């Protein structure tokens, strides 16, 4: 099929590689399409420069205050939180929220997920890593406290369902230990940190399910 100027919009909409190649070949001899394609590429090249970064020293303290205030005035906590002692439930929920978002800071859409500290150095500074590790410790401590509360029920495992939860928790703990050992070898590996977060979230969900089981 011969590419014509009328095909350009459809090609740019669908982004099909072979059609784009045909469009670029056509544009070599077509000034109008060449101009359109050049501007299309210019927009794509300029857009990442619209990404904004600015210092916000007051933002985190503001968010922490708002979260603390929210917790104080909160009514009707979720069932799994009400089973925890009052201060612990606040700490657990706040740590979960903060850790989740601190962890998210590592994600950086479009950035490489590998463990090359020089390539990621712009984003994954030592300070940021320390913040993440601190949040991670708080998050893990909250889950450990939840695990301690669930432990008697898990050990008793007086139903097939609870026995399955116990086995799942055992597997998760083994996977977490393996992942942590890998992370000890490369603290900058954002991919491993996301994997670890996913495992902790699964452990948290499983513990919640255990706690929600009728005795």
């Amino acid at each position: 099929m011969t590419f014509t100027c009328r095909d350009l919009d459809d090609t740019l909409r669908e982004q099909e590689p072979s059609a784009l190649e045909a469009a670029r070949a056509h544009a070599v001899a077509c000034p109008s399409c060449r101009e359109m394609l050049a501007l299309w590429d210019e927009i794509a090249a300029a857009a990442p420069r619209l990404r904004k970064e600015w210092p916000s020293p007051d933002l985190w303290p503001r968010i922490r205050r708002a979260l603390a205030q929210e917790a104080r005035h909160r009514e009707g906590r979720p069932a799994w939180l009400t089973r925890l002692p009052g201060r612990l439930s606040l700490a657990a929920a706040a740590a979960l929220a903060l850790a989740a978002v601190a962890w998210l800071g590592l994600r950086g859409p479009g950035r490489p997920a590998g463990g090359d500290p020089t390539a990621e150095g712009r984003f994954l500074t030592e300070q940021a890593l320390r913040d993440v590790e601190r949040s991670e410790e708080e998050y893990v401590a909250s889950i450990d406290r939840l695990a301690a509360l669930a432990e008697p029920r898990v050990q008793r495992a007086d139903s097939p369902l609870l026995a399955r939860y116990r086995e799942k928790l055992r597997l998760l703990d083994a996977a977490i230990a393996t992942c942590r050992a890998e992370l000890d070898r490369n603290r900058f590996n954002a991919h491993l940190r996301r994997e670890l977060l996913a495992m902790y979230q699964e452990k948290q969900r499983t513990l919640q399910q255990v706690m929600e089981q009728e005795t």
Partner: protein
Amino acid sequence: MKSVAANLLNDTSDAEDAVQEAFLKIYRALPGFKGESLLSTWLYRILVNTCHDLGRRRTRSPEVPAADRPEDVREPEPGAPPVDPALRLTLERLIHRLPPLPRTVFVLFEVEGFKHREIAGILGIPEVTSRYALFEAKKALQTQILASRRGRTDA
């Protein structure tokens, strides 16, 4: 998160308010997060919805356009092609005239580097809708920039 909010709201102060509000929503909803989507998708969905709500509530124009503050603009990546500063400023101005969906998709895809699959998850739309919304955004920007350039040439 601040950058997404700033580009959706065109105001850094509003962006910080949106991030704070999003954190509160995340805090309220986190115990109920069932893991049906990626955590990052879920968090950005809350942020984008918060920005849309805040944008609807606030119609005031920023006293100082965000782009006028040099510290607001990210330095180019090493090896990145040079970008015409005038084009960047024009884009910054024009994206806020786009309809909400094309603007949001443009910001997430072209500015923040999300993939269509991720955008579809964040916005709760099919991937093809994300692709078409991006085309709509870029086509509108292209048309306006071309008209402006031709106007300057003719003058």
